[in-house]
């Protein structure tokens, strides 16, 4: 049966068909839907879980693989940084049952804080990496990755990019191959990496790379396609599709399905048959540098770009000199950047912080949007968990400003890597005021459960972290809870806490308004009583997308208003009505 599937959905189908037993991941755009779709096969078929972070997820998958069950973990590119520690050593231990690690890069940064190229990890950790170019290949390469993992006794990378992960194309759906759990035989020379053993395993890793490269020379995933040989293109993944779209049969192609290690002889042979060789790859010149190192001349980054995405028009323009005509209006079109949703509890928290005019050490999540106007309340944002640890560093250098500084971190991000920062703040004695924006869900990636929500990935009830007790256990004595919908009370409570000479955990607790069960209980949309509105724009200060201003009056768009009522107390003229 043919189905239209997202690349991520097709990877999940590949996991199912490959007889995978365990999937453990932390959500991260654009990788999230792999694990979300794997859940649908049922946990007696594939045990799926959201781990607290990518390191835990990868280690869980490693444990399952060594125990003899095919295992998998998925993460976005920056998530792989978190899991880099186990990665480099599991490359030494190898596997028992197949172990596949998916990493989804985000060229163009649709939903990321940097644009790193994960292919460097494959080279650095000496791990075989496959890169599919559509949904069918997402499924087939996933299955192949498990076979290769067992054949070469190695973890195998599956590299995706946003346009593969979040594009749909048709996939032929197949049956599951039941792969029994393999025998576990104690072999600590292979699996216990102390120096004496690791020295021997490093030899194995180097030999394995040679064997893999030999396989790559004739592997079906590396394909040549000869058309006009004036132009030759080496490409992988989505870039291959862009090249095909732009050049069609005006070029010949070497499409790489395996991007590490490279089939050097195949590349040499292809290069010898074409007049001008282009290496097309988004982000870093990973392929190009290896091609050049063989003494092969090619055109790569000097004609293209290290930044952002490639596309068919970019390739057509550079290689063929062709451009398409387009129409544009001669008017200024205001931008439409993303914004906190109407009814978002983070809006209340940031409004309170704005009134207090504090420094805000930020983190990764929906609330990072609090950096944008009109709230503009995030000063820094580096990576998951950095809000808490970086605030501690700041407070040690500027102790006099500790009373005007806070950290903000979401519930899921706090569990991911904020807890260790809180431990540090208590242990190394700073007056850090850490605000956990507890909206009872992992929001930005599209509503995933996490260890604070009391629900597992499939919605089953489970234990929930008691944030108050956790803070006490690590040595934070002061813990308060506020409701961010009550902006004034939230402001006053935080102001009082800032005066205290001790670290505090402030929990701003109010579930995400997009949660179905929350939405169902919200009041009807609010309205502006036109006769009472004096046009003072006080209600506009919170930057709610549902409130607009025209003809000297505010108005509330009923299609967007969630009935949160945060705007109502801002109006001194009692012009905002509703709440029923």
């Amino acid at each position, binding site marked *: 049966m*043919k189905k*239209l599937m*997202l690349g991520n959905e097709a990877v999940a189908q590949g996991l199912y068909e490959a007889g995978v037993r365990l999937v453990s991941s932390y959500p991260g*755009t*654009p990788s*999230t*839907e792999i694990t979300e779709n794997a859940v649908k096969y049922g946990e007696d078929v594939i045990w799926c879980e959201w781990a607290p972070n990518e390191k835990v997820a990868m280690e869980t998958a490693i444990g399952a693989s060594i125990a003899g069950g095919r295992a998998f973990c998925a993460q976005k590119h920056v998530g792989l940084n978190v899991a880099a520690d186990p990665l480099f050593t599991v490359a030494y231990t190898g596997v028992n049952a197949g172990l596949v690690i998916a990493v989804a890069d985000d060229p163009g940064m*649709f*939903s990321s804080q940097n644009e790193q190229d994960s292919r460097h990890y494959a080279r650095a950790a000496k791990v075989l990496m496959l890169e599919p170019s*559509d949904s069918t290949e997402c499924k087939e390469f996933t299955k192949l990755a498990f076979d290769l993992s067992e054949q070469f006794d190695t973890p195998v990378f599956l590299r995706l990019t946003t*346009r593969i992960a*979040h*594009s*749909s*194309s*048709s996939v032929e759906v197949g049956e599951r191959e039941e792969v029994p759990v393999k025998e576990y035989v104690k072999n600590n020379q292979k699996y216990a990496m102390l120096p004496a053993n690791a020295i021997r395993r490093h030899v194995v890793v180097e030999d394995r790379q040679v064997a893999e490269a030999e396989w790559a020379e004739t592997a079906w995933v590396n394909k040549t396609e000869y058309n006009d040989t004036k132009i030759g293109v080496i490409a992988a993944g*989505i870039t291959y*599709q*862009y090249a*095909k*779209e732009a050049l069609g049969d005006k070029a010949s192609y070497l499409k790489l399905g395996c991007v590490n290690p490279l089939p050097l002889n195949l590349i040499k042979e292809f290069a010898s048959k074409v007049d001008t060789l282009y290496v097309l790859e988004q982000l870093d010149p990973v392929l190009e540098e290896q091609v050049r190192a063989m003494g092969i001349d090619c055109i790569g980054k000097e004609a293209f770009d290290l930044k952002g995405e490639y*596309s*068919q*028009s970019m390739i057509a323009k550079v290689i063929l000199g062709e451009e*398409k*005509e*387009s*129409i*544009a*209006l001669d*008017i*200024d*079109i*205001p*931008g*439409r*950047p*993303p*914004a*906190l*949703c109407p009814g978002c509890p983070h809006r209340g928290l940031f409004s309170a912080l704005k009134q207090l005019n504090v420094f805000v050490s930020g983190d990764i999540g*929906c609330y*990072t*949007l609090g950096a944008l*106007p*009109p709230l503009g309340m995030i000063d820094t944002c580096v990576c998951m968990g950095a809000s808490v640890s970086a605030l501690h560093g700041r407070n040690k250098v500027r102790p006099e400003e500790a009373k005007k500084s806070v950290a903000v971190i979401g519930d899921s991000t706090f569990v991911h890597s904020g807890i260790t920062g809180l431990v540090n703040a208590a242990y190394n004695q700073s007056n850090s005021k850490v605000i956990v924006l507890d909206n009872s869900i992992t929001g*930005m*990636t*599209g509503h995933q459960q996490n260890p604070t929500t009391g629900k597992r990935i499939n919605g089953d009830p489970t234990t929930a972290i008691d944030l108050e007790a956790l803070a006490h256990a690590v040595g934070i004595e002061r813990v308060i809870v506020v409701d961010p919908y009550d902006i004034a009370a939230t402001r006053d409570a935080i102001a009082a806490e800032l005066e205290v000479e001790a670290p505090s955990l402030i929990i701003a607790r109010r579930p995400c308004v997009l949660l179905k069960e929350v939405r169902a209980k919200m009041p009807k949309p609010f309205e502006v009583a036109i006769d009472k509105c004096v046009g003072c*724009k006080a209600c*506009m200060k919170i*930057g*709610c*997308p549902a409130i*607009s*201003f025209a003809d000297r009056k505010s108005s509330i*768009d*009923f*299609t*967007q208003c969630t009935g949160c009522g945060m705007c109502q107390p801002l109006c001194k003229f009692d012009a905002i009505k509703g709440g029923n």
Partner: protein
Amino acid sequence: MTRSILIVGVGGQGTLLASRLLGRTLLAKDYDVKISEVHGMSQRGGSVVTYVRYGDNVASPIVEKGEADIILSFEELEAARWLPYLKKGGKIVVNTQKMDPMPVIIGAAEYPKDVLKQVEAAGVEVQAVDALRMALEAGSPKAVNVALLGVVAQNTDIEKDVWEETIRTTVPEKFIDLNLKAFGLGYNA
């Protein structure tokens, strides 16, 4: 021959469902189909775009400037923003809804006046419909996406019952009637 449709709007308006219904209908007609979506941060109230491409053999899933046969816009300003993506001789289907973006809300920019008139003045065929009214008539403001899909359907040669079958097999059971009604209103607009 590959045809390209751009579905644009404001995050939260339900553009993804429209593109998935469109994609499934095209697949049912045995086209090779590719759809490219945007998830994550850009979805939060920002300008969003989904690309739908279909034909005998589609390579790239994205649509670029000067390539779209049809642009389906859920909002007026977004129609103007994405206009450069329209092919010469292409058509814009637009919902006559206006949503202020944040720069307008905070007074840093103005929502341009008579946007659609300007698009038409550029020599572009525009089919403007009040999909919000249709959606409300069908029973929910959320059905704007399916009402607009009905308008797009009317611009293709795919039979009405193929579209309706996709709706029946895609949306949750309790919303089927509402969506079929919204689709019908769009189809007959």
